[in-house]
């Protein structure tokens, strides 16, 4: 009797679980479908795509579209492939992320542990900076870059992203350091540590999780940015996103969909990689930084 009852419970449990998993699997498929289409079509000759059958696996497997997208495809007027623009993006992203993270950490440290008159106003203004629409600053920024002689250069783009990035990185670090016990800073002051020594020896070693969050956030945003890239770069300083657009939008010749797919995956790979490597710290850091308290 009782075993019978248990069996019923298990059977109904399995039934509902089946429904849940089926639904989840369907959603999963649905979300993965675009990636499947991209990967599959980047690995087949153009003729197979033109013959229809976007969904089918390639008859002839080839990496030629990848090679073409990387080094020979026509971007704008020159057949350079995406390679030089990939490096443009790297050279732009790395310093922009590094500097905005360090400055954000410093800002957070000052705003929480070295409070001064008007600090909340400054923080408020920085926060406000996070939410100014990109479009609004385009023209003033172009003017500024022109005045300081950074227009159309990679350092110019680094500067723009830095300015936009500091608001968010400051927000992250400030919230994180808010939880950081002030008594530690005071103890270090009595021990004789100065402003930067406390930052380097006491604060930074405890900032791992929030630094990861900040790096992922900045990296993804700056790497994926299109508007600033399109507005403030010349042909030789264009980031990957703009070059990809030029590759796909080029109006001359046949549209090489397989090359476009390969290029698009290339442009997405670095952010994907960052998520895979540091993703679990991301969730952990978000919990530690902004949710707690």
């Amino acid at each position, binding site marked *: 009797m009782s075993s019978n009852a248990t069996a019923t419970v298990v059977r109904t449990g399995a039934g509902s679980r089946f429904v849940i998993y089926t639904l989840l699997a369907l959603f999963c498929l649905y979300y993965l479908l675009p990636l499947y289409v991209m990967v599959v079509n980047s690995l087949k000759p153009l003729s197979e795509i033109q013959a229809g059958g976007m969904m089918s696996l390639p008859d002839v497997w080839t990496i030629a579209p990848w090679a073409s997208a990387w080094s020979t495809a026509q971007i704008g007027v020159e057949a350079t492939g995406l390679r030089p623009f990939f490096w443009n993006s790297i050279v732009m992203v790395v310093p922009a992320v590094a500097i905005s993270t360090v400055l954000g950490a410093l800002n957070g440290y000052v705003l929480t542990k070295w409070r001064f008159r008007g600090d909340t106003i400054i923080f408020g203004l920085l926060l406000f900076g996070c939410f100014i629409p990109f479009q609004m600053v385009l023209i003033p920024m172009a003017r500024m870059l022109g005045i300081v002689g950074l227009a159309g250069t990679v350092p110019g783009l680094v500067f723009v992203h830095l300015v936009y990035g500091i608001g968010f990185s400051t927000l992250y670090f400030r919230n994180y350091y808010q939880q950081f*016990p002030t*008594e*530690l800073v*005071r*103890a*270090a*002051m*009595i*021990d*004789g*540590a100065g402003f930067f*020594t406390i930052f380097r*020896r*006491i604060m930074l*070693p*405890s900032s791992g999780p929030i630094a990861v969050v900040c790096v992922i956030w900045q990296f993804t945003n700056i790497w994926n940015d299109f508007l600033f890239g399109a507005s403030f770069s010349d042909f030789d300083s264009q980031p990957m996103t703009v070059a990809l657009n030029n590759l796909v939008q080029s109006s001359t010749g046949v549209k090489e969909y397989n090359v476009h797919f390969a290029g698009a995956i290339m442009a997405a790979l670095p952010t994907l990689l960052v998520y895979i490597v540091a993703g679990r710290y991301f969730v952990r850091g978000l919990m530690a930084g902004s949710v707690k308290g």
Partner: protein
Amino acid sequence: MGFLDIKNATKSYGAVKVLHETDISIEEGEFLVLVGPSGCGKSTLLNMIAGLEEITTGDIAIKGQSMAGVRPADRNIAMVFQSYALYPNMNVGQNIVFGLEMHGVPKPERDTAMNKVADLLQIKHLLDRKPGQLSGGQRQRVAMGRALVRDPDVFLFDEPLSNLDAKLRVDMRTEIKKLHQKLKTTIVYVTHDQIEALTLSTRIAVMFGGHVQQLGTPKEVYDNPANMFVAGFMGSPSMNLFPARIAVENGKAVAKAKLADGQDATLPFPDARGFERHDGREIVLGLRPEAITDRDGADRNSQSVHVIEAHVDITEPAGSDTFVGTQMGGKEVTGRFRADVDVHPGQTFPFAINMEKAVAFDPETEKRVS
């Protein structure tokens, strides 16, 4: 001039004055405890000595040298914090010598100093651990080690025991006292626990509302409280305070307090002690529970034990003593009887009152009368 001089120091945040003019001077080797309820300004005063808070007006001097504008690091002080404030990323050894490192002491000397302190506090086996792996008591020791290793002029303790459980707190209290007797260092110690204050200190500053209410040795503060706040705050159970009327007869002062049955208890003071101008007026009489006992428990050395019959409202056996409640002057009054006295609620029982220990306060100003 003392070793540590607080001269007319005040602290204001904007228009709010959190510490009023404060004068405290202590000698080298003294153990000063700042005690008071939260918000009384004791931690603010400690932080001002440490240099973590600026002094609004007045001055603080250590060894005769004004500390105005001197950074905390250059004051030759060390501080133990309530939360211990151990650096979480460093191990115990690194925590202890961080201050020496910052002051440019070479590595071999740092290690010698570290080992000496670790021996003293018996934490040698913990040197390689991170603070997160330590128990509360161990963290407390490490925090003290970090202070000791600096060999400072003044030690500052900010409620160092309040995060420990009751048993450990008593043990550490004894240990701090021993340490002070051994090292003879100057200590300023903040606590809200009056027992800690009485047991540890050579001098106590009782603080309330940003004022030092009384500065004195533990005995002075306990036996001769300057006002009703100090009387009520120091001691546990706290001093009984109840209204009584003064009458001066034949050069002797007598306090009359109404008992529960409506009768007046007549309590003669040992002498007139300046009660003349209060003749016929009401005062607040203060009697510690141990000054209200059973007849055989009364202090034999006292010349002025007076026995009254009073109604027993409640008895609270506490193992070593029995606390007996009655009414005087319309207030609950607690007496401390010996544990084996056969006393029950509802009885009328003889209470022996030691009037040598009685103190009187002006009900208006709350200040001491006699």
